[in-house]
């Protein structure tokens, strides 16, 4: 076993360049796997956001747009659903439950969502998990609000605090519903979904704070106080969207069709899973681009490795002539160099994978908190193993390039030791 040992010692002799090469490969592997983890993590996060809802109903629009604004609080609704349409759909025999969603106001950049108390029992996330209260209870009074975990943490709110809702959804708003402040009645437990970043109030409250408004601005001289509004009949004129649960899933397509063809108002009904699939199709291109970039970074690292092995060839011609003189075949020298490249790549891949898992363990809580992205720490998937195996193989094959050159050099040098 002298030859492998000498090869290892030769490598140790070049420890600095070798370890830098390994580090470059490790970082590139870390990037490649990291992109994959974030990609699957983001998909999982999105897919986990809504569960148990059979249909989402909104004004006529694209499926992705409706899904984004109703569930993910991304973008805005083009139009509303009238209360009449909402009531018609709610009365249909296939419908088991219906929860309205009314958007359009905000609180310090967090969206305000008007809904019914059913929301807290009907809305499900991550494989049918229900919302839970970390503190307090659902809203019972007109001006009660239930805030998500991130809202409570970011703004330091506790049950009983008073908050003022702003009109519009920007983080800085000049028009506030100052005359009708809310009181925090409950704080939801962390879910890892947009619910964490939402302020929930009752549908009537949304109506109440806009009762003296017209066309998006307060009507001058017509202010109605919070006490006065309690006495009024606060039936909403419209909602933004509605989440639907059906008695039988078999009726999903039939009801979807019926809503899409609803005569009195242009409406859209979407199946959340199908809309998500459509969304993946849209972001798939970006994901592919990201994967290609990481693959190119890995290729660059392997190129660096080949360069390193190539540049050491000249100073190793002596080593090769000595090996040839004691009877090593040119094929042995070829194998030695290709193995060296393969071992460097393997070391890089192992180190990169280890670094990624270390980084995941370290940063997972932070990423979860800051980006709401829950990255699961699983052993590498079959696909990832395949990727890692391919990189090692590519490194070995790339090593054949300097190895072939060494082979030719050792044939040409023969017994002459060049230094």
């Amino acid at each position, binding site marked *: 076993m002298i030859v492998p040992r000498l090869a290892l010692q030769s490598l140790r002799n070049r420890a600095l360049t070798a370890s830098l090469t390994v580090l470059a490969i490790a970082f590139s592997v870390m990037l490649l796997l990291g992109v994959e983890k974030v990609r699957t993590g983001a998909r999982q996060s999105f897919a986990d956001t809504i569960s148990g809802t059979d249909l989402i109903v909104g004004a006529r629009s694209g499926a992705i747009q409706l899904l984004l604004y109703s569930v993910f609080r991304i973008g805005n609704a083009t139009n509303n659903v009238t209360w009449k349409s909402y009531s018609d759909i709610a009365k249909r025999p296939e419908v088991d439950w219906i929860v309205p969603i009314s958007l359009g106001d905000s609180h310090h950049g967090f969206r305000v969502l008007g809904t019914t108390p059913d929301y807290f029992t009907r809305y499900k996330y991550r494989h049918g998990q229900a919302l839970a209260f970390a503190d307090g209870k659902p809203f019972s009074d007109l001006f009660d609000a239930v805030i998500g975990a991130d809202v409570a943490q970011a703004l330091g709110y506790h049950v009983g605090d008073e908050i003022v809702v702003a009109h519009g959804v920007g983080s800085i708003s000049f028009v506030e519903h100052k005359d009708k402040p809310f009181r925090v009645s409950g704080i939801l437990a962390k879910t890892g979904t947009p619910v964490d970043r939402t302020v929930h109030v009752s549908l009537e409250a949304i109506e109440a704070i806009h009762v003296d408004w017209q066309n998006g601005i307060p009507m001058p001289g017509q202010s109605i106080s919070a006490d006065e509004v309690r006495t009024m009949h606060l039936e909403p004129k419209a909602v933004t969207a509605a989440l639907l649960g059906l008695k039988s899933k078999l009726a999903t397509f039939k009801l979807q069709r019926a809503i899409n063809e609803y005569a009195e108002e242009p409406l859209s009904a979407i199946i959340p899973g199908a809309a998500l699939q459509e969304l993946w199709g849209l972001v798939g291109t970006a994901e592919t681009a990201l994967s290609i970039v990481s693959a190119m970074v890995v290729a660059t690292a392997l190129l660096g490795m080949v360069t390193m092995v190539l540049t050491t060839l000249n100073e190793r011609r002596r080593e090769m002539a000595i090996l040839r003189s004691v*009877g*090593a*075949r*040119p094929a042995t020298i070829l194998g030695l160099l290709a193995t060296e490249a393969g071992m460097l790549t393997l070391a890089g891949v192992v180190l990169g994978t280890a670094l990624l898992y270390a980084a995941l363990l370290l940063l997972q809580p932070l990423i979860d908190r800051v980006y709401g992205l829950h990255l699961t720490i699983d052993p590498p998937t079959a696909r990832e193993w395949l990727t890692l195996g391919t990189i090692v193989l590519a490194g070995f094959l790339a090593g054949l390039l300097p190895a072939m050159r060494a082979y030719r050099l050792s044939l040409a040098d023969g*017994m002459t030791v060049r230094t």
Partner: protein
Amino acid sequence: MQRSLPEMQTPDVVSMSGVRFRWRGPRAFSLAIDSFALRAKERVLLIGPSGAGKSTFLSLLCGIVTPSEGRLEVLGTDMAKLSSSGRDRFRAEHFGIIFQMFNLLPYGSVLDNVLLPLSFAPKRRRRASQGGTIESEASRLLASLGLDPKEVEGLSTANLSVGQQQRVAAARALIGAPELIVADEPTSALDRNRQQAFLDLLFADVAAAGASLIMVSHEEELGKRFDRVVRLDEIATSERRAAA
């Protein structure tokens, strides 16, 4: 000129006749050796002025390259009839080679350097382990070459003087008793006193192993210590062409 007579009582270790070889490529160089023979246990000094084709002669002798014409036999084996890997194995089993300098793998230990050829030559390995282990044989050779095995074996070769390195190289060439020792100016990096001492030790060990020795040098005054002196330019003609 010595004439090779293959039918004599002991066969020649090396016998060449009518050998022609040409390097291809930009540094085209051709060498023609009419006749050369080395008898068993003979010690020959080969005087090769620079440019006479010394490296080519050694490459042919050691089977790195094969002649395009003529006959080249080592220990009765026609080198041209062996495959390239067959020649590598043949070299491993039957040749001990000492270079001018930089003989050793600098990062390896002395012991690993001495034992290196045995990884490629199972018969030599068997011969080397006859009196005990291959390690004890390496120690014996190092000691006979004037190195204290206990002191040097674990050392990295980078810590040795040039003279010590050449003695380790000699031990590597001699281990497992190959039939032919080829030394390419092994003493050129040594001063005169060390040269003599090195040759004394080398000769004693070559004789003890019953091997033959071809040593290449440009120092003719070393010739009196050898059985025979051969001038390369007298047995061979070389031609160097400028790049075409």
